[in-house]
């Protein structure tokens, strides 16, 4: 179970763009580095990140990213989102070695 931190910058207001910041604990091992024993460490990357918004009727994509070996450990991803109304934000990180992490965050607009 990876550790994540998700924060909304300010209170959500219908139709007003706001920043979402996400941070997840992950080594982002490139697959190119030797370990202490000289053997190459197995690649262990987060490959995909998706954030979607579900208002109860339909789900829409808010933001998606593909991640590659040049991304630092513990990736910090920030993006903007305009809440169309009340609903739930769903964050999914997927990667090598079966890594999958899902977080949800309820959004109540003012």
């Amino acid at each position, binding site marked *: 179970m990876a*550790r994540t*931190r998700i*924060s909304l910058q300010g209170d959500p207001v219908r139709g007003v763009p706001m920043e979402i*910041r996400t*941070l997840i*604990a992950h*080594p*982002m091992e490139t697959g190119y580095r030797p370990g202490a024993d000289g053997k190459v460490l197995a690649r262990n990357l987060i490959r995909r990140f998706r954030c979607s918004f579900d208002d109860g009727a339909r789900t829409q994509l808010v933001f998606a990213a593909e991640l590659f070996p040049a991304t*630092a*450990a*513990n990736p*910090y991803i*920030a993006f903007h989102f305009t809440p169309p109304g009340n609903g739930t934000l769903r964050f999914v990180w997927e990667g090598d070695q079966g890594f999958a992490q899902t977080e949800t965050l309820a959004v109540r607009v003012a």
Partner: protein
Amino acid sequence: MWLEAPLPLRRLATVVLLLLSGLYPVVMAQTVARPEPADPRRSGFDFMGPSTQAMQRGDDRNPGMLWVVDGEALWSREPANGGKACIACHAAANSSMAGVAARYPAFDAASARPVTLGQRINVCRQQNQRLPVLAWESPDLLALEAFVAHQSRGRPIAPPADPRLAPFTEQGRQLFGQRLGQLNLSCSICHDRSAGRRLGGSPIPEGHATGYPLYRLEWQGLGSLQRRLRSCMAGVRAEPYAFGAPQWVALELYLAQRARGMLLETPAVRP
């Protein structure tokens, strides 16, 4: 000759005379007088670029906070051996641990030697929780240390005025000035005499340990002050002391005295 000179030259001469006469410093002192001189010491934070500073400032983007959150969970988790959790004796950390990290290393009466915060956590685990000690730089120890030290963030470093610590602090002061390794450099040569200059393109900070355990971008993770000191020693091509060696504790004691009054930043971010 004075009167014969053109007006601009005369004005210039008057200014020069004023400067030489010592009037100028008096005028300056009156206009920029401050109630007390500012602390000339600078944290490593002040040597960083604005983006790294922003990374440390924002708790939602500081990766060190991932360890703090882990430590918070460990603080209240009952160990598998049925013993007590940290919280059972110490209560909520935001009150009981506030300011504690600012006083470490401290003297441990039982072992008659100074201990660092990490060592203190392990002593507590062994004696009170009946748990095996956590290895140096292990994620759990770093998480607990970061969580406890985070409770003192923003507080001034206040090493205890314990006379029993004095010989160890003195040992640390001597180690700080001792030349080491193939490069034959002491801590002091870089961090006292050359602070603010550059080494291989990177600024040399003053070496104040204000934010440990801290997230180092080079490490891609959280690390202790001893880890940092060890890599500095390897940098001057000396054989680093082992983790937990008394020399590290002595150095940490001296560094705490040297940074007395500076504010704790745990978990700091450094390049």
